């Protein structure tokens, strides 16, 4: 029987990976992910988990090693953050295009420079285009539940793609919270043993990763695009199945008090939990505001998102990363992509907040709300801004 206990999210995530009976873990220490792999090494040491634990010499090697173990047909797990994910960049595309169903948890953290170990989404957002599935947990319970879900999605024969499970570094990874931990037996009823579609096998030799000449490269990319996009159906099914089995149902796009809201905040990750409390508070003052949260980020749940913001007037989009000199934050960019050309599309107030560990608090939400309210009242849509920057408004520093 699942037990609910107070546990650090990182440890719970590691326990979940162990309960999924992973075969291989290759990882390199990086804050704030480290507790996950450290705990896995303990579980291997204690004989709780029969797996190969490979403490490699860099993240580049970690992801390469994961490709090797996954290619051999092993259920493969790893974890990283920030610079570590950036160092994996080269191999990320390879894991994806070789269709290796690796599960990687990423405790999201800012990228240097300046050196910063705290939370934002610059690490994951710079990996948007690498062809992995990407999903976000908002707290320890979600992130723990998403581990078996991710393995099941990745290994589904209709999917066969690596998946990145994101949660906010420190804010989620290091927090002790009550988490209902599924046992290995319970997980086994949901996640069957892994049967690779194909693997490196001396008796049935195949080649992985050969050259793709211009005559086939586009088709290979097309196949990959189709695989990622078509993963949406199986993902929904698997989330649903998990909900039916264990009572916690997760959706690709989550909403909170949006029914009667004119203004809706859009975000992902742990900030939405703070935002829920803020929404509850300001609703008492009569402010009709709700939240739409992306859980699934790749494939982008376009239709589910459109439905969630149907009829809304103003979106307050919060990004925790942005493209300097570019089109603002990634969430805003993609939200606009989903709504471009739609009749009566809501207006978008785009802000960047929570960079490098700066807290997104009620004050921040108040500020964003004010801007949204002005637009709702007929004001101009302001340009994207780093709303928490000292020195004030973007463009007027």
């Amino acid at each position, binding site marked *: 029987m699942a037990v609910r206990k107070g546990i650090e999210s990182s440890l719970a995530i590691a326990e979940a990976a162990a309960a999924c009976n992973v075969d291989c873990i290759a990882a390199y*220490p990086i804050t704030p992910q480290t507790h996950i*792999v*450290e705990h896995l090494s303990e579980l291997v040491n204690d004989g709780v988990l029969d797996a190969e634990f490979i403490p490699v*010499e*860099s993240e580049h090697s970690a992801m390469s090693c994961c490709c090797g173990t996954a290619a051999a047909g092993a259920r493969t797990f790893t974890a990283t953050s920030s*610079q570590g994910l950036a160092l994996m960049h080269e191999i990320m595309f390879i894991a994806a295009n070789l269709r290796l169903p690796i599960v990687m948890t990423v405790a999201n953290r800012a990228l240097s420079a300046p*050196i910063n170990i705290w939370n934002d989404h610059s690490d994951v957002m710079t990996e948007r285009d690498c062809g992995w599935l990407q999903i976000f947990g908002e707290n320890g319970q979600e992130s723990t539940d998403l581990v078996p879900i991710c393995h099941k999605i990745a290994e589904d024969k209709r999917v066969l793609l690596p998946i990145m499970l994101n949660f906010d570094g420190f804010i989620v990874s290091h927090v002790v919270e009550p988490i209902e931990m599924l046992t290995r037996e319970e997980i086994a009823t949901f996640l069957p043993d892994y049967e690779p579609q194909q693997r490196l096998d001396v008796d049935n030799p195949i080649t992985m990763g050969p050259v793709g000449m211009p005559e086939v490269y586009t088709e290979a990319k097309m196949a990959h695009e189709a695989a990622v996009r078509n993963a949406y159906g199986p993902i929904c099914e698997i989330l649903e199945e998990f909900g039916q089995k264990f009572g916690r149902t997760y959706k690709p796009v989550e909403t909170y008090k949006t029914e009667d809201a004119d203004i809706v905040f859009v975000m992902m990750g742990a900030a939405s939990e703070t935002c829920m409390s803020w929404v509850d508070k300001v609703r008492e003052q009569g402010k009709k505001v709700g939240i739409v949260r992306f859980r699934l980020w790749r494939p982008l749940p376009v239709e589910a998102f459109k439905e969630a913001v149907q009829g809304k007037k103003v979106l307050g989009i919060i990004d925790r990363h942005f493209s300097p000199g570019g089109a603002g934050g990634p969430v805003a960019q993609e939200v606009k992509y989903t709504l471009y050309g739609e009749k009566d599309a809501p207006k978008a107030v785009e802000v960047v907040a929570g960079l490098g560990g700066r807290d997104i608090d009620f004050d921040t939400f108040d500020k964003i709300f004010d801007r949204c309210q002005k637009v709702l009242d007929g004001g101009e849509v302001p340009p994207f801004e780093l709303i928490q920057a000292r020195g004030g408004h973007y463009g007027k520093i």
Partner: protein
Amino acid sequence: MTEIKSHPVDGLLRTDRMPHIWCPGCGVGTSVNCFTRAIEKLEMDLDKLHVVSGIGCTGRVAGYINVDSFHTTHGRALAFATGLSLSRPDSKVVVYSGDGDIAAIGGNHLIHAARRNVDMTVICVNNYTYGMTGGQVTPTTPDKALASTTPFGNFEHTFNIPNLVAASGGTYVARWTVFHVRQLTRAMVSALKHPGFSFIEVLSPCPTLYMRRNKLGAAVNLMEYFKESAVIENGADTRTVALNEGKTVLGEFVNVRLPTLRESYEERMKEALGEKFVPYEGSK
């Protein structure tokens, strides 16, 4: 009122950044003390000294030394320093970082910088673990030692770093401990004066993570061990200096003068281009 007295090497440190992050008993600070004494002894022009660090506990050194410093990414300090060294031929470039940074994630840069005999001094503080991230296993963790990622005891072969550097082509290679402060300071003086790739491995206690986990007592116990197990063998064949239980071979193992990368480059280009070749004088 407490009177704050200045320390003799205060001028070489960014005292505004104190207190530093190092734990009580950590050896990194001791090595920095030796380094500042070496700089003083050489009366170095501080405008022509650059300190480059990677990431880690030792990686913080660049931030505390009051000269031009470059706090780079994990493992890449030597690559940054190679660029810096070639573009500032009139300056001294020092890489100051830990074993995890230099010999693990940055191992490839180490062997190639040594092979090319790039003009730089590398001070590698080896405390047998990744300190900053919580004491994980490194390529320098001794056999069977415990680390947070080897609760079962390390089973991988351990790097003999001086041998690695010497075999790769390093032209000055030494090893000392933070107990041997005078010898270490003297070695730093020699390394800083050495044209080409000079490398010092500095054995150092990490009481917080490595020693506590391995029940090795307090920092002072490792200092005593360094004292008792030290065998000074200048010129020793680096193949024989692997760290073994009970014996810590120390000394200046390699000190030869070979053309530096820049010298080889200039010679080759003079041959190839003759009169047309204009040696690079450095960025201004």
